[in-house]
């Protein structure tokens, strides 16, 4: 039924397939964002807005540039020597790629959770207290640790072993520790790169519940390969694809209902129904 013509495979989605929001309500906004790693152009001219307190999922086949795009939003690509970022990313109307901005500070406001849980090889307590300490917030540290662990829905499971190594707990618990660690510095956005892909269904469910709960206060941008997960939790979804030229582009960005119910672009349709990717 679906037909994809070869010409369209190297083009971005037409402009009307990219949802536009009232800019004053966007917590993040990127314009013409391109990233290259030396000779390789990973993503090209991506423009999109992220509304405050929404859950936005980034989907697309492996290698289309999802992680690359995600890392642009908190200047994580700065840590990759050959990565070069062009274009603009605004956080509440302020350019984060400006010289005046301290990337470390940005990374506290816009936290990140990775695919594999990566707690520091320290106690659970120290993992959570780390960010606040760096930021000089040493008052009520116990309280901050407890609140963060509670918000990450892992307090009951670890409250009696706060001084044990964070590596001694299950993968699902470690992932929630990493979320608690990000939450401890009161971020406004959390970027998540396949946060549940290494977890069993129950831990996945608790991470999903947590994401939905957090979204009343925090904006969440999540990369996932699990279409059902994306439909369950996201308000909006963005589909990326790299064509024959291997350059990743934003093809379609719209509401959950649109992307998973009735996508406008044939390539999105083919991807979400498992025909490509």
């Amino acid at each position, binding site marked *: 039924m679906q037909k*994809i013509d070869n010409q369209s495979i190297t083009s971005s989605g037409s402009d009307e397939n990219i949802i536009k929001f009232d800019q004053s309500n966007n917590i993040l906004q990127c314009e013409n964002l391109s990233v290259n790693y030396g000779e390789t152009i990973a993503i090209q001219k991506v423009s999109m807005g992220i509304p405050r307190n929404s859950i936005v999922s980034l989907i697309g086949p492996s290698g289309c540039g999802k992680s690359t795009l995600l890392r642009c939003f908190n200047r994580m690509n700065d840590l990759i020597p050959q990565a070069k970022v062009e274009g603009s990313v605004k956080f509440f109307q302020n350019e984060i790629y400006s010289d005046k901005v301290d990337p470390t500070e940005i990374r506290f406001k816009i936290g990140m959770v990775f695919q594999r849980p990566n707690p520091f090889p320290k106690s659970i307590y120290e993992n959570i207290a780390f960010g606040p300490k760096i930021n000089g917030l040493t008052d009520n540290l116990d309280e901050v640790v407890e609140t963060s662990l509670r918000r990450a829905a892992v307090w009951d499971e670890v409250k009696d072993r706060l001084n044990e190594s964070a590596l001694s707990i299950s993968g699902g618990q470690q992932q929630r520790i990493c979320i608690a660690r990000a939450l401890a510095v009161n971020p406004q956005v959390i970027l998540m790169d396949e946060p549940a892909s290494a977890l069993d269904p129950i831990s996945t469910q608790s991470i999903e519940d947590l994401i939905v709960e957090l979204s009343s206060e925090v904006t969440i941008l999540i990369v996932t390969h699990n279409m059902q997960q994306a439909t369950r939790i996201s308000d909006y979804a963005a589909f990326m694809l790299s064509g*024959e030229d291997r350059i990743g582009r934003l093809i379609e960005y719209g509401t959950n209902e649109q992307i998973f119910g*009735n996508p406008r672009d044939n390539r999105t349709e083919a991807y979400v129904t*498992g025909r490509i990717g």
Partner: protein
Amino acid sequence: MDNNNDLNVARQGFEGSLNKLQSDILLLGDLVIQAIKKSIHSLKTRNIEESEEVIKDDDNIDELETQIQVLCVELIRKEAPLASDLRRIVSALQIVDELERIGDYAEGIAKISVTMGKLIPINELVLIPKMAESSVNMLSRSLESYTLRDFSTCSNILEELRAKDKEINAMHKQVQKELLNTIKHDSAEGGEQATYLMWAAHNLERIADRSKNIAERSLFQVTGEIN
């Protein structure tokens, strides 16, 4: 790179099941259309054996309905369908339900015919077979829409069937008026017969209405909009 080929290779089994789903629904549609035609023919000719066949054959319709529903549930469980796949399966479930109910209306007409037994016909039936013919046409058109999956064709067919449905409602009113007249002025036996025929006409009006519903579900299959 031939993307059309890629699409055919990926999820080939699922694609095959979706095609089977569609052909099963068309088969069910055929059985139902035969049932309507036979029920009206037997009513008109007072062929009780033929009416009884319609009643017996309704079991086949119910069985095929169940089979299709089982296939839909299995596809949802195994394939976690999204987008057009999801819409195809949801509309299949809705359409299969409409078809089964239409089958029941045909069976209902056959039962009326059996109950009427050997009552002497008051008049030759004219309008009721006409209503039946229009309803069967509507049903075939709605099934055509179901297979086409194209926005403009499906919306045109729906418009067409909405208009036809109004025509059938008007015919229904006319039949009611004539039969009421018979009830008022004819013999007791004629009145009894007219009362039965009243129900047959009612069933045909319902069949037309549900055929229009099938055209609505077919448009949903394309747009994903429920209204």
